[in-house]
C-alpha cells in the first residue's frame, strides 16, 4: 500500500443531494466516503452487502484494448484470491462492480483491499492474469444471443460485449495503469452499503478524476427492423427503446405473449421469454428469445412475428397489462426495500439516469395504458434485429442486415488456392475478399484491429464487424512485401501481435476438398458477460 495523505473521514450528508437523491428521503441515505458518492440503507440481514461500482465497462474499450477493464478488475481482486469471503467482481457493458457480502469487518477489509489494489495494481501479476482471462474466455459458452451486439453496433462500443478480449494479448503495463488511473477514480465511482451508517475503518482513497458519460451508440444497421441468419433452434430478437416504465411493462407483456403463443398454444418452443435491461442513461435493450424444435422452428418464427404484430396492433388485453404490472409491483413489495434497491440506484447515479422513488415508480406503473404498450411495441419492432434459422424474415417486412460490404478496394489480386471463385485483394486503402456471393472489405481507416502472426497471417476486423483473414498459405503470392503493406497501412494502435502458432495450426489449402464454409464474414461470436448482475443482486436482496 502506498503511503499517502488520506482525505478527511466520511461526512454524513455533507453535500447537497446529487441527481435527485432527495426523492429517496426516508428510504436511502447518502453521503460521500473519501469523495465517493455513497448510498446506504439498512437491511434486517445479519450480514451486509456492499458494492463499489465504477462507470467503466466493455463499451468504453476499443477492440485492441478489449478486456482491459476486466483485467483491472482481476488485478484488483488478486490479493483476495484465497479468501473464503463471499465476494466477486464483474465487468459489464457500462460498469464494473466489486461486491461483497459478509460481516462489517469483512466488508470493510474487502473494500479497502480493492481500493488499495486499484491505487497500486500488482503489475507483476499482469501476464498471469491475462493468461487467466484467455482461459476464462475459452471456457465461456457462446450463447445464442452472443452475436447480436456485434451485428447492431459493430466491433466497437456496445458491440464489444460479444468480442474476444483481444487486449489480453497485447496490453502493456502502462496502458493498464493509465486505464485504472483514469477510470477507477473516486469521481467515476459510487459506493453502496446495506447498513444504517457508514462503517468505521473504511479507507477508499482513490485518485481524483472525472465522471465518464456512457459512450455514444454506433450502428451498423442501415435499415431496421433487420434480420440475420442464425443457428437452428433459436429465435432471437433485440431492440433498443427509450427507457421508461411503460417499456419495462412491455417486456413483461411480450415475454408472456411469446410464452403463451409459442409454448402453451403451439408447442413450438420450450423457452419463450423477454427481458428489459438498461443500456445507458436514456436507452434500454429489449431482448426476446424463443428456442424451437427443429421440426417446428419455422412455426416458432411465424408465431414470434405474429405475437409481436398483435402487440403492435394494440390488441392487448387489459388482463395482460394488469398481470405484468402486478408482477413488477411485487418486486417493490419486499422488506428492506431501500437496501434491495441500492444496486439499481447506484447504477442510475453512475450513468446519470433519473432516480425514481418507489412511490413514483408505482404511480408510473399504475398509469401505464394499453395504448402506451402499443407505442413501445412499435418502437421496439421498428428498431429491432431478429435472428432466425431457416429462410430469413424479409417476408415479415424486415431488411436483411448487411452481410457483405458495400464496396471493394483495388489492389493486387491473390487467388484463393482452394476455390477459384474467391480472390483476396490487398490494396492501398484496404483489403477485400471477393466471393461469388459478395465482397467483404476492411479499410485501413475503418480498421478496428488487426491481429498478426509471426508466420505472416493477418486478420483485419473493421469497425463495422466485417473481417478479412489474410493467410499467406491459402492465397497466391501473398509475399512478405504484400504483408508489409498491411503492417504499414494499419494504424499501429490497432495492431495486436499474437504468438506463433504450431505448424499444424497454420492452414494448408485443401485440394479437391469441399470449399470452406463461405464467408462467415463477421467476427466470430463472443460471450455475453455480467449484464444482468445488478438484477441478480436485486433479486438476492429480495430473498433476504
Amino acid at each position, binding site marked *: 500500500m502506498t503511503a499517502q495523505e488520506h482525505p478527511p473521514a466520511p461526512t454524513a450528508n455533507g453535500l447537497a443531494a446529487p441527481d435527485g437523491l432527495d426523492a429517496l428521503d426516508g428510504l436511502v441515505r447518502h453521503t460521500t466516503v473519501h469523495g465517493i458518492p455513497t448510498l446506504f440503507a439498512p437491511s434486517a440481514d445479519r450480514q451486509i452487502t456492499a458494492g463499489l461500482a465504477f462507470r467503466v465497462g466493455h463499451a468504453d474499450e476499443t477492440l485492441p484494448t478489449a478486456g482491459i477493464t476486466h483485467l483491472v478488475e482481476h488485478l484488483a481482486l488478486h490479493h483476495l484470491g484465497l479468501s473464503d469471503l463471499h465476494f466477486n467482481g464483474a465487468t459489464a457493458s457500462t460498469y464494473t462492480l466489486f461486491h461483497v457480502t459478509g460481516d462489517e469487518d469483512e466488508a470493510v477489509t474487502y473494500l479497502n483491499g480493492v481500493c488499495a489494489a486499484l491505487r497500486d495494481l500488482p503489475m507483476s501479476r499482469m501476464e498471469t492474469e491475462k493468461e487467466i482471462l484467455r482461459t476464462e474466455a475459452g471456457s465461456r459458452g457462446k450463447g445464442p444471443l452472443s452475436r447480436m451486439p456485434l451485428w447492431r453496433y459493430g466491433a466497437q462500443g456496445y458491440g464489444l460485449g460479444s468480442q474476444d478480449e483481444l487486449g489480453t494479448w497485447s496490453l502493456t503495463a502502462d496502458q493498464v495503469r493509465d486505464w485504472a488511473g483514469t477510470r477507477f477514480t473516486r469521481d467515476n465511482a459510487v459506493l453502496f452499503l446495506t447498513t444504517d451508517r457508514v462503517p468505521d475503518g473504511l479507507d477508499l482513497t482513490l485518485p481524483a478524476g472525472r465522471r465518464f458519460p456512457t459512450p455514444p451508440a454506433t450502428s451498423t444497421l442501415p435499415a431496421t427492423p433487420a434480420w440475420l441468419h442464425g443457428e437452428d433452434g433459436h429465435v432471437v430478437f433485440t431492440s433498443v427503446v427509450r427507457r421508461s416504465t411503460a417499456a419495462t411493462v412491455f417486456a413483461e407483456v411480450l415475454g408472456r405473449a411469446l410464452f403463451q403463443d409459442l409454448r402453451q398454444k*403451439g408447442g413450438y418452443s420450450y423457452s419463450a421469454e423477454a427481458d428489459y435491461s438498461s443500456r445507458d442513461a436514456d436507452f434500454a435493450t429489449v431482448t426476446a428469445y424463443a428456442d424451437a424444435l427443429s421440426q417446428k422452428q419455422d*412455426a416458432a418464427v411465424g408465431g414470434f412475428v405474429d405475437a409481436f404484430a398483435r402487440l403492435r396492433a394494440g390488441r392487448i388485453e387489459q388482463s395482460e397489462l394488469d398481470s405484468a404490472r402486478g408482477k413488477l409491483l411485487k418486486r417493490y413489495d419486499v422488506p428492506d426495500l431501500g437496501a434491495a434497491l441500492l444496486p439499481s440506484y447506484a447504477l442510475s447515479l453512475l450513468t446519470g439516469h433519473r432516480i425514481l422513488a418507489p412511490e413514483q415508480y408505482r404511480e408510473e406503473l399504475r398509469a401505464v395504458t394499453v395504448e402506451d404498450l402499443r407505442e413501445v411495441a412499435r418502437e421496439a419492432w421498428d428498431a429491432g434485429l431478429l435472428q432466425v434459422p431457416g429462410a430469413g424474415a424479409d417476408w415479415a417486412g424486415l431488411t436483411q442486415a448487411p452481410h457483405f460490404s458495400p464496396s471493394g478496394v483495388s489492389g493486387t489480386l491473390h487467388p484463393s488456392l482452394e476455390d477459384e471463385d474467391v480472390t483476396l485483394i490487398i490494396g492501398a486503402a484496404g483489403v477485400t475478399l471477393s466471393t461469388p456471393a459478395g465482397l467483404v472489405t476492411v479499410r485501413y481507416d475503418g480498421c478496428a484491429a488487426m491481429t498478426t502472426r509471426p508466420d505472416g497471417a493477418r486478420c483485419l476486423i473493421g469497425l463495422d464487424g466485417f473481417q478479412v483473414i489474410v493467410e499467406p498459405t491459402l492465397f497466391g503470392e501473398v509475399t512478405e512485401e504484400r504483408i508489409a503493406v498491411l503492417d504499414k497501412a494499419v494504424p499501429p494502435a490497432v495492431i495486436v501481435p499474437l504468438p506463433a502458432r504450431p505448424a499444424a495450426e497454420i492452414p494448408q489449402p485443401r485440394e479437391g476438398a469441399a470449399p470452406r464454409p463461405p464467408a462467415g464474414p463477421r467476427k466470430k461470436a463472443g460471450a455475453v458477460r455480467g449484464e444482468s448482475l445488478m438484477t441478480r443482486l436485486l433479486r438476492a436482496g429480495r430473498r433476504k
Partner: protein
Amino acid sequence: MGDSTDDGPRPLVTDPFDAVPALAPLRDAAWDGDWEAVRAFFEGIAADEATGVEKISLAAALLAGVDRTEWFLEKAVKDRPAGPLPRTLLAERYVQLGWRARGRGPAESLSWDAARQCHDWLCKAELLLIEVCAEEPAYVPAWTTRLSTARGLGLGQSEARRRYDRLAEHHPHHVRAQSELLRQLSPEWGGSWEAAHGFAEECASAAPDGSHAGVLIAEAHLEHWAALEGAEAEEYLRSTTVRDELLRAARVSVLHPDHRRDWRWTDSHSAFALALSLGGHAGDAAPHFAALGDTVSESIWRNVPDWRTRFIEYRTAAAQATP
C-alpha cells in the same frame, strides 16, 4: 343434361362467375372498379354461418382473378385502412399476381426474375395479412390467404400448419383452407404423400355429411397422379383402393342427400369427374358429369392435355356407361 346433341356439344361454361349466377354482381362490380359494390357484395354474405365463410373465401379468390382489380382495391385500402376486408382482398389479388408472375412450370424451370417478382408480390400480400391477422385473429379469409403466401414464400411445413391451426380454431371445416394446406403437404412443396392423403382423410371424416370436404380426397389423388409418369400414373388412378376411396368420399360429400349445391359445386364435381374418368371408371364418374352438365372448373381440368376435348369424351363415356 350434358349429353351431346345433334348439333354437337354446346360450348363449355368455364368461368366460375357464369357457373354461379349469384356471383354475377361481384364480377360487374370488379369490372366497374366499384369498391362500394364489391363491399356490399361481401357484406351481403352472412359470415356467421359456416357456408358464409366458404363463400367469402371463394368470392375473394374469384375477385382476385379479375385483371386490374388491384387499382381500386389499393384505393379502398387507403380509404379504409382499418377494415380487414379491403386489405384481405388486395392481398389475395397480390397473391394472384405473384403466382401469375411465377408461371405454372416446375420450380426448376423458374427464372430468377420470375421468382423475384413472385416473391415480392407475396411479401406485399403477407405484410397486409400479418396486420389483419394481428388485429382480427378470427378473420378466417385472411388466414386462408396466408396459407398461400406461406407456401409461395417457402415458410415451411410447420409454419403453414401453424397458420392452419390458427384458422381452424375459428372454422374447423374450411375446405378452401384445407385444400391450400393439402398442396403444401404434398412432396412438391416439402411434404409427403402420406401426410397429404392423411390430412385429406382426416378432414373428410371430420366434416359433417354433405359438406365439400370429401373433395380433398379427390384433390390429393389428382395431385399424386400428376406427380407420377407414364404407366405408373395410369395405374395409380385405376387401382380399386383409390377408386373406393373416391367413391366413399363422393358419397359422404357431394352425393350425400344432405349436400346442398353452393358456390363451390363445380370445383368439387369437376375433381371427382376427372379423377374417376382418368381411372377408367366412367360409370362412377357419371353422377358428377350429370351434375356438371356443360359447366366445368378449368383450374381442376387444365392439367390434362387438350382438356376440353377430353372432358367431352369422358362425359360421353360416362353417359353411355350409365345403366
